[in-house]
């Protein structure tokens, strides 16, 4: 059972919760850039959470479902249709065999997640199905989708769709040829009014920057440049001068580390970031905020609000509680 890729979209990759425990070998965690939207999409089709979804970037793909499937689209708002009917976002949608799913350009946010009941059944590599394109492994052939690709689905995907969808039936609504429900999952990570405000802690080398740069970092409005990718978001704004402290010893980095290379323009490290880096780290984005940053499109703007470790932890706990409540409610719809 597979899905045929008619058009690949701008950058469509298979992602899951990431490849963990191997950073000491230089192996990056990868995984969904917006793990919140990814988790909601999975829960909407009754998946447990381990399953891989498709990450759509800015312009989505066109896919042909050869058999019936239960799907959900979360994250970035992009025009989507199934055999010409508008595909509703943030809810489970049953597709009959032979459905052509078209997705377009993102109007809000930059990354959408398409989950399919049973998940995308590419072989796990080093414990994860996530694509790591820089080293060409994981996902489908270690790369983004191309036209003509056959995306393998769980062998039971059609059965799962047939079995899971009727459980939702009492809430079901027919919309033309599509079958969906009247309720939807909340969207939690899409950018509200820009510049979005992103909480960040002072980084290990904050003190190496001159006072004007320290102020500018937290006062300026930063713009995500087109050179941004899954490894890092390059930000444009005022140039941040580091007091000539010489070379920094290369050290560990993590998701959300903001480092400043010699050109003075910060880079926020995202899901495919390198495990170590030798540039001064001016800040660390609170983990709870990274998914919202990931939804900024090139040209999108943000400001950093200084926070303490305790505040970052509180944000993380609150975000986690919110997501878990939503996931529990969705699991309940499937009788779990």
């Amino acid at each position, binding site marked *: 059972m597979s899905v045929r890729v008619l058009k690949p979209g701008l950058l469509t990759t298979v992602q899951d919760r990431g490849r*963990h*425990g*191997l*950073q*000491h*070998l*230089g*192996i*990056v*965690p990868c995984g969904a850039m917006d793990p919140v939207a990814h988790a909601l999409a999975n829960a909407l089709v009754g998946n447990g959470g381990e399953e891989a979804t498709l990450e759509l970037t800015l312009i989505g793909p066109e896919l042909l479902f050869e058999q019936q499937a239960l799907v959900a689209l979360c994250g970035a708002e992009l025009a989507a249709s199934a055999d010409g009917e508008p595909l509703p976002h943030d809810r489970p949608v049953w597709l009959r065999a032979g459905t052509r799913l078209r997705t377009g350009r993102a109007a809000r946010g930059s990354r959408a997640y398409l989950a399919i009941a049973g998940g995308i059944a590419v072989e796990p*590599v*080093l414990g994860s199905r996530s694509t*790591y394109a*820089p*080293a060409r*492994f*994981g996902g489908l052939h*270690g790369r983004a989708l191309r036209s003509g690709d056959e995306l393998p689905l769980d062998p039971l995907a059609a059965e799962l769709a047939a079995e899971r969808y009727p459980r939702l039936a009492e809430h079901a609504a027919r919309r033309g040829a599509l079958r969906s429900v009247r309720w939807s999952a909340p969207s939690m990570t899409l950018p509200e009014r820009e510049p979005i405000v992103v909480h960040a*802690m002072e980084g*290990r080398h904050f003190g190496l920057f001159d006072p004007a740069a320290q102020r500018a970092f937290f006062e300026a409005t930063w713009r995500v440049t087109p050179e941004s990718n899954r490894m890092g978001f390059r930000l444009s704004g005022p140039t941040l001068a580091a007091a000539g402290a010489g*070379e920094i*010893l*290369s*050290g*560990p*980095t*993590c*998701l*959300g*580390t903001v480092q400043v290379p010699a050109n003075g323009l910060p880079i926020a490290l995202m899901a495919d970031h*390198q*495990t*170590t*880096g030798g540039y001064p780290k001016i800040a*660390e*984005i*609170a*983990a709870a905020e990274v998914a919202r940053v990931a939804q900024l499109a090139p040209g999108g703007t943000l400001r950093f609000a200084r926070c303490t*470790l305790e505040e*970052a*932890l509180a944000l*993380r706990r609150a975000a*986690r509680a919110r997501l878990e409540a939503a996931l529990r409610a969705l699991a309940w719809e499937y009788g779990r």
Partner: protein
Amino acid sequence: MALRRARTPRPLGILPLGDCAAYVEFSETLDLQVNAVVQRLAAAVRARGVPWLRDIVPALGGLALHFDPGHSELPAAALEASAALVDECLRKGLPELEAVGREIELPVCYEREFALDLEDVAARAGLMPDEVVRRHAAREYHVLMMGFAPGLPYLGGLDPKLAVPRRATPRAEVPAGSIAIANEQSVAYPYAIPGGWSVIGRTPLVLFDARRDPPSLLAPGDRVRIVPIARAEFERRRTL
């Protein structure tokens, strides 16, 4: 016992690395003795099998402990819990370095065709190219850290005479297996990637293969002995 304890350096600090990791910092400069302690501490922490620690990453001057933010046993004060864990490992005594890593032979061919920057390094170091090769191959190296790319080792123990800076202009693509030097260290490129270090040789071994177990030829703490090989031997080893 008391003497040995006194010789184990204390960390400079245990700092937050974001809100999902701790960095146990021992040194802000490259120091092989300090790195040996980092490797031994990494092994001690790993042996504890703490369920909420997702990644234990020895780096040049310290150890990063990455938390699993979704783990049910993650303490509310994970940074403090990490500090207590490190303290306990240091108090109980660390394993010897010899017990942490393996000894691995790395065949390297220094033929001019692979040694893209050998002449340049020789000129900067004021040595003949053959002397650069002899000095590079003569040392025993330690894997201080893996990073920059999957399976890419930072090797400490470079002859100080070979300590050249990074190239002013990085190469858009350094061939897979390239052995390069800069910053008093040597690296080996696991696959073709951009890089700014001076290339002086190439190994025929596959340094990284995601479908192999373990995927990386080298791991932090390993000791690496270089075996210089001729072109014919390179070809033979490559097709193995």
